[in-house]
């Protein structure tokens, strides 16, 4: 079982799989996002409360969900890399961080654009926005820590440890902000309950979420190829790999 595991995590294998998967993932992501865009922007009816403003959900929510998913992927890869000393884990974590950070920025900016017409302000100390901001800080911390080390191996391991510490902290931060908000009773928040959504609104959302996931997978493959190359020392397979 373990030999299988290590073969799966071997750099040439990962590089090859990432290179092969990349285009398929991009194709699938384009299809899913294309359907989501058309159905979400043109076909879905306006929300009875929010009018057409609700259409921002189709980029805001997938961005926000992905920023968390990517962090989880990063932390899981980091934990695997730390525990079993599997270098590909560090490569996955390093490849995920900038993508996740960009999704966190997307969620924050679109969130505040959505907040303006709905809450009358670009920024509210809403639990979800606040936790998202903290999440962005964590991403920035992990990325800066990794790049601050001159020895990439130590940078990898330090960043991995921080990612794992952060993943323990994210739920605590979220929970504490929720508690804090209930104390302060800030701006009234218009919530869209996903289960109550009619299908014509929900399907485009699910499709967009899938598209974002596939897009993350595709970009992750590209970055993973680069990170694996940067970490590789046995040149034998690299010569073959970079020719193509």
């Amino acid at each position: 079982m373990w030999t299988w595991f290590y073969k799966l995590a071997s750099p040439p294998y990962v590089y090859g799989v990432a290179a092969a998967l990349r285009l398929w993932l991009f194709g699938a992501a384009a299809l899913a996002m294309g359907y989501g865009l058309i159905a979400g922007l043109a076909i879905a009816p306006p929300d009875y409360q929010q009018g057409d403003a609700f259409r921002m959900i189709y980029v805001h929510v997938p961005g926000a969900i992905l920023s968390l998913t990517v962090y989880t992927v990063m932390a899981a890869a980091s934990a695997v890399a730390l525990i079993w000393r599997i270098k590909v884990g560090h490569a996955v974590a390093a490849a995920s961080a900038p993508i996740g950070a960009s999704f966190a920025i997307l969620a924050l900016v679109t969130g505040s654009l959505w907040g303006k017409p709905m809450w009358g302000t670009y920024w509210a100390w809403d639990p979800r926005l606040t936790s998202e901001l903290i999440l962005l800080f964590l991403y920035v911390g992990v990325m800066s820590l990794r790049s601050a080390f001159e020895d990439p191996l130590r940078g990898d391991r330090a960043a991995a440890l921080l990612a794992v510490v952060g993943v323990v902290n994210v739920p605590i931060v979220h929970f504490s902000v929720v508690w804090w908000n209930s104390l302060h009773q800030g701006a009234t928040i218009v919530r869209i309950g996903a289960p109550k959504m009619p299908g014509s609104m929900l399907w485009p959302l699910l499709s967009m979420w899938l598209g974002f996931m596939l897009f993350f997978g595709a970009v992750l493959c590209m970055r993973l190829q680069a990170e694996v190359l940067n970490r590789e020392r046995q040149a034998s397979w690299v010569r073959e790999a970079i020719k193509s």
Partner: protein
Amino acid sequence: MNFASDGLEFEKVHVWRGDRHVLQGISAHVRPRELLHISGANGTGKTTLLRVVSGLLRPEQGSVTWLGQSITSSRTEYQAALAYASHEPALKSDLTAIENLRFAVGLKRRVTPKDLLAALDRTGVAACAELPARVLSAGQRRRVSLARVLAMRASIWLLDEPHANLDAEGSELVSELLQAHVQEGGLALVVAHRDLALSCPVRRLELNS
């Protein structure tokens, strides 16, 4: 002191620092009553090797074993039997020489101030015992760090450039200490540029890039 029959062994140790392959499969076996003299030009990984043997640095490939056991599995026991003197004297400048010794040696074994003073006396810096390390000269600091190694009464000595900053008489002292340690049944790994000029058996390990 209890010295076991089988000594310290490291096998095919590989370490990379960034893109640099610092240690490329270094192996050696040092038994009690033996001294390994590690030499080589600057940047060939002498200090890195010493840090690997001490257990501070885990090699990417290869193993270090003590009494036939991997040092990662019995780390604290191994390190309790170890005295490491790094290239810098590792003294707190705000503490006096004897306090420095007390806080370092006291973690390895119970010591009395008398033991520590005796060690300082052996390395010729008993007069500096109550002075803060800040005011000591580089040579005196080196002697205090040697006294720390001595006072630990460890079976394994790892010394990184013990002659640095020492005068001729000081170098003589280093040789005497090493000789006495080896004759009592200890083993030592010494990184040094110069010849050690010892009468006890000396094995050599030359590192090159």
